[in-house]
């Protein structure tokens, strides 16, 4: 669509320029407002996301070392689990088996003890009287078995009659 004369006439009307003193004021305000907004942003209490970002950023170098350590521990754990069945049963499950010399010593000790027990039995029997050799107790009360001299002082002597 070609513009006609009326459109050309209108388009030639110059636009009004902003006052000259606006330029410095607008640009100065823009700079002043922009700089405090940055400072205020940094003065705000840090958000959780900011803290995490900062922390992760600071620990960017140790992260690979930490990952390598974790990988090593996992490998060692897996290797230990594969080696332990080859070692057999755990120590507390193994029954104790004495050696040959210790078994021989135990056998000798047992035979000596048996020999000592068998040799001491006759002497013990001869030294102690047998229950069958004791005189049988009388059927009377013990008071009648006492001698006459052994009466109680408070007890009167029996009369001769």
């Amino acid at each position, binding site marked *: 669509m070609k513009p006609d004369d009326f459109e050309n*006439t209108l388009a030639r*009307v110059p*636009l009004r320029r902003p006052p000259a003193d606006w330029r410095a004021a607008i640009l100065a305000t823009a700079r002043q407002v922009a700089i405090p907004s940055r400072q205020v942003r940094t003065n705000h209490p840090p958000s959780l996301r900011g803290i995490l970002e900062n922390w992760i950023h600071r620990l960017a170098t140790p992260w690979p070392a930490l990952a390598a350590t974790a990988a090593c521990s996992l490998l060692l754990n897996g290797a230990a689990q594969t080696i332990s069945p080859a070692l057999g049963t755990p120590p507390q499950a193994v029954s104790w088996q004495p050696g040959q010399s210790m078994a021989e010593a135990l056998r000798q000790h047992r035979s000596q003890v048996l020999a000592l027990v068998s040799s001491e039995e006759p002497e013990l029997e001869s030294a102690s009287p047998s229950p069958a050799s004791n005189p049988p107790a009388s059927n009377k009360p013990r008071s009648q078995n006492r001698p006459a001299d052994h009466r109680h002082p408070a007890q009167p002597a029996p009369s001769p009659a």
Partner: protein
Amino acid sequence: MPAGDTLERLYDAHATSLYAFALSLTRRDSDSRDLLQDLFVKLARHPGALDDVHDERSFLLRWMRNAAVDLFRRRQSREHLGEALAEETASPFAPAPDPDDQAFRDALAEALFELPEEQRAIVQLKLWEGMTFEAIAQLLNISPNTAASRYRYGLDKLRLRLRPLYEELQ
């Protein structure tokens, strides 16, 4: 953030168009100054806002129109509360030394302000910014055909209104 010299360059390159567009939209000098100020503050706060922009003028005019729409919304709520502002409208055109030219420019400003906002913006962008209908449609989020039809409606109204003065000037 655009550096100081970048802000100055942007101001020198686009302030006149932005100011005239703001005047065309708001009709008030104080509002236009506020919008221009806010736009440059926004530019200073958003570093790299124009990095991937190939047409700075269209981008900044879009910012200006969005800011003006926000201003209209705030003003409507205030005017509903009976706080209508009584301020003389300011012409978006430069004063002319010749009285006849000045009369024509004043009449042109009045006729422009009588257009509906959607026609006024398109006439402004087409006649004084030299933008294509495609660029205007992209800026205003409308179709190029809609932009072209609104322009013709607006231009016909201006022609009808300014015909006596225009014929005198011819």
